[in-house]
């Protein structure tokens, strides 16, 4: 029943950055097919700024860490993913509070707050073929697992599985938000880049809490 420690949450971000760097070209290819070809570049730039800021400020509490991460993303990424992921982390941190560890319920609440922030900022609906189609099921799966009494680590595994499934399901959808929406039916058959970076976000969480 191990709580998620500050160091693990810091590690979450580092792992996400590593995955994004590794998948940069793939993310860009996905975005070239139905967007403007910069999602990989945007995310790598944002996470470089986030880890630089976290390194510089040396925050010691969860709220300060994610405020740093969120602000760094907001002020370095731009585009659609900057405000969306930025809001996600800002809300996550604010909800988590000035603590050094989070139990399963705290974590579920913070993740839920992050996802609600994304929903408010971008007004995506489920099925609009956006990052929200990976994020919403992931956050739901995490909360359900915690409610069933599972550990944060196991819950994060369920969230990762749900995020990946949500990401893959975006292929069949017609985009209704973001640049891909301009393509209408032509967006069908392509996986959404933002859903892919979100799947990596939850995969990183599972790895960090393992």
């Amino acid at each position: 029943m191990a709580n998620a420690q500050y160091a693990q949450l810091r590690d979450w971000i580092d792992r996400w950055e590593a995955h994004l760097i590794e998948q940069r070209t793939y993310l860009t290819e996905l975005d070239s097919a139905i967007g403007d070809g910069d999602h990989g570049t945007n995310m790598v730039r944002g996470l470089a700024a986030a880890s630089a800021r976290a390194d510089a400020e040396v925050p010691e509490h969860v709220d300060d860490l994610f405020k740093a991460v969120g602000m760094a993303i907001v002020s370095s990424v731009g585009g659609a993913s900057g405000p969306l992921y930025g809001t996600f982390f800002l809300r996550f941190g604010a909800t988590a509070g000035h603590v050094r560890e989070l139990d399963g319920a705290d974590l579920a609440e913070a993740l839920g707050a992050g996802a609600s922030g994304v929903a408010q900022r971008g007004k995506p609906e489920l099925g609009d073929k956006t990052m929200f189609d990976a994020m919403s099921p992931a956050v739901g799966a995490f909360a359900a697992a915690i409610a069933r009494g599972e550990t944060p680590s196991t819950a994060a595994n369920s969230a990762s599985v749900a995020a990946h499934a949500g990401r893959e399901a975006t292929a069949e959808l017609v985009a209704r938000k973001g640049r891909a929406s301009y393509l209408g039916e032509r967006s069908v058959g392509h996986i959404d880049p933002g859903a892919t970076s979100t799947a990596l976000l939850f995969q990183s969480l599972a790895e960090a809490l393992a």
Partner: protein
Amino acid sequence: MKKLINAADDVLAESLAGFAAAHPELRVDHVNRIVYRGEPKPHGTVALLSGGGTGHEPLHAGFVGFGMLDAAVAGEVFTSPTPDQIMEATARVDTGAGVLHIVKNYTGDVMNFEMAAELGGSIPVETVVVADDVAVEDSTFTAGRRGTGVTVLLEKIVGAAAEQGRDLAEIGALARHIATSGRSMGMALTSGTLPAVGKPTFDLPETEMEIGVGIHGEPGRRRVPLASAREVAEMLVEPILADRSFAAAPTIVMLNGMGATPLIELYLMFGEVKSILDRAGVTIARSLVGDYITSLDMAGCSVTILEADNDTLALWDAPVATPALRWGM
């Protein structure tokens, strides 16, 4: 990738440095990537601010100056600027009368400008979102249409109105009026190449073209076989006229190049567009032919038509002095 650049990561900073060197009459904040007028507006005059991703030059920095923008904020290539940049520019250009944010309708731009306006504090901000691209169908259930060519005309017209001292509410209303009075449609012969990606965003065979592209290298509405300038003009003008009639009042028409199309072709296309408009009973009162809102090194063009009443035409004719648009002074 064949580009006159150094490292892909430095394109924005270095291009801005060259811009600053070429236009000593403007002020450039290289840290925040903001271009300002050299001479700020008189106190109590509404300021105009725009911005967006890099790669659309001369938009927006090329439109900073008397009679047009007070500042332009640059994001990375095809990426909206961030809220901090926008807040900084807003604070600097405000003369006490408030600031108009001119935003092209892309999710990223809209959200970043929205966050800036929310976090911006006490400066009154009006926002106009330009969404003029008729290529986007089914826009009711989506994020709506893209903002393209009307942005240029709006910056000129509303810039002239601000120079006259109209107040923020009037400026906001005028901007929204202009934004809804125009339509655009674009096409691509080739895909542009993002410096950071190094290869074309989409593959377009020698015998095909994309109709209904935006300005971010997104594929368009549909891919069709190469056609003559006359047919291309029809494919661009007809969806515009189907969306909105322009027969009632004079218009301003822009034939815009996407970055890699030479002027000889743009003029030829303008001739074709004019023939179609003549037949449709649309009067061209003013026109603009050239590269005004581009998409890196994409070859192609777009057509913008704006209904223009007498006030609009007078504002259009008013003096302007920017790097890319200049007359009357």
